[in-house]
């Protein structure tokens, strides 16, 4: 099987991820931090170790790493915990529904929303961003790298502009965590959200939001809770703890998924983020060379080399093409990729497009089989 759907979830996972999940289920089987026995405390230590590893990787504090089910929950928690009753939220036109939908929901409560255009030229993107900023802008939520095409945003410049204006900057690193070095301090990111199961090579079932130092200690008490429930502490209180991360972590965490994320992150650190990015870029460049000059194939944003190639084949529905790829044991994804905003911007049409997304385990030789199917589909 050839797996070119790494933007949906990375596959396969490193063997050490599988091993640690099994080990966690058998040796750290307690509920993290809930009980006083050794299994529970061992699970809590494993969870904290993962908080430390994430904090080290992104430049934050371990105590400010909030675990969630996935990046969508992390983004919902991030946006809704800081949103007030008034003001405007600025997002980009490459946002995933994980941002677009919660922000749209907030507009129904009285907040305003503006959208800026992301170009393949970063200066132009910054100009578009500045044009949409206004005195009422309170929060900026930006997808650092599109899940649909190779477009990305200059996070450091956007972060600086937000910091100067006292605007909260929330970064969606879903598509680039693990293949792009991101430092929260350097990029002035207030809250960084990511899934564990994509570029960080962990299993599904775990994502996180890293809150910046402005939310440390008692400042966390100002964050609105997204869900309330057990936290393993202050049980007699009627409200969630006033400190991160427990304030925003109601209920039992998924220790196996968090342990798997820890092993996945160790894998990424061992190989190196830059090395993984270079590898994915080589795959993109080769695939783009194959498709860009092929009659009957439209490649969207071919100039942005990353890990994602978005294309359409003349006269073939993307969904039909994906079925043909699948029958040849090649996994790609067709449609809108849960992101209508970038598809509308790229004018991919009413059926979306085909996405081939590359990962750490893909090989250049796999592209020959991929290209054979493309040629087969051209009428």
């Amino acid at each position, binding site marked *: 099987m050839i797996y070119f759907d790494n933007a949906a979830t990375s596959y396969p996972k490193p063997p050490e991820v599988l091993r640690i999940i099994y080990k966690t289920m058998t040796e750290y089987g307690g509920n993290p931090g809930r009980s006083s026995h050794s299994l529970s405390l061992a699970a809590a230590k494993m969870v904290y170790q993962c908080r430390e590893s994430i904090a080290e990787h992104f430049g934050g504090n371990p*105590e400010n790493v909030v675990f969630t089910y996935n990046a969508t929950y992390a983004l919902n928690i991030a946006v809704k915990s800081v949103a007030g009753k008034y003001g405007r939220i600025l997002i980009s036109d490459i946002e995933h529904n994980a941002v677009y939908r919660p922000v749209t929901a907030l507009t129904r409560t009285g907040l305003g929303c503006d959208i800026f255009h992301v170009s393949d030229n970063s200066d132009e993107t910054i100009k578009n961003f500045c044009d949409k900023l206004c005195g009422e802008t309170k929060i900026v939520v930006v997808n650092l790298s599109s899940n649909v095409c190779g477009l990305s945003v200059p996070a450091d410049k956007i972060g600086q502009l937000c910091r100067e204006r006292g605007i909260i900057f929330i970064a969606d690193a879903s598509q680039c965590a693990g293949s792009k070095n991101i430092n929260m301090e350097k990029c002035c990111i207030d809250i960084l959200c990511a899934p564990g199961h994509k570029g960080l090579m962990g299993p599904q079932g775990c994502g996180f939001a890293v809150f910046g130092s402005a939310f440390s200690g008692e400042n966390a008490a100002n964050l609105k809770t997204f869900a309330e429930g057990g936290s393993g502490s202050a049980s007699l209180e009627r409200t969630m703890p006033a400190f991160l991360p427990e304030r925003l972590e109601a209920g039992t965490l998924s220790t196996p998924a968090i342990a798997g994320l820890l092993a996945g992150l160790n894998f990424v650190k061992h190989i190196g983020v830059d090395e993984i990015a270079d590898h994915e870029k080589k795959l993109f460049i080769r695939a783009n060379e194959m498709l860009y000059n092929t009659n009957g194939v439209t490649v969207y944003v071919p100039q942005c080399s990353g890990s994602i190639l978005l294309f359409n084949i003349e006269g073939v529905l993307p969904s039909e093409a994906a079925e043909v790829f699948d029958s040849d044991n090649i996994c790609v994804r067709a449609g809108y990729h849960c992101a209508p905003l970038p598809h509308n911007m790229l004018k991919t049409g009413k059926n979306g497009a085909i996405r081939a997304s590359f990962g750490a385990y893909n090989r250049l030789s796999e592209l020959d089989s991929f290209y054979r199917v493309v040629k087969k589909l051209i009428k």
Partner: protein
Amino acid sequence: MTRCIITTSTITIALHGQKILGDYAVGSTLVKLSSNETKQGCAHGIQVNCSSVDAAKNILDRHGVKYTTVIYK
């Protein structure tokens, strides 16, 4: 023998504190406290040698680790 426990409101704070104490070679054990030992219900604590309590508190203070109180049991 008396046990000395520096209590914290959450397990993450306790683990953070334990890590910092470890950096200063202060040995400690993570413990969970039952609701009858605290005012707010379940809590966690860092158990240290009673002769090291003041030094441990000092280190935690310097690193901004919020502990609640010290229990002697």
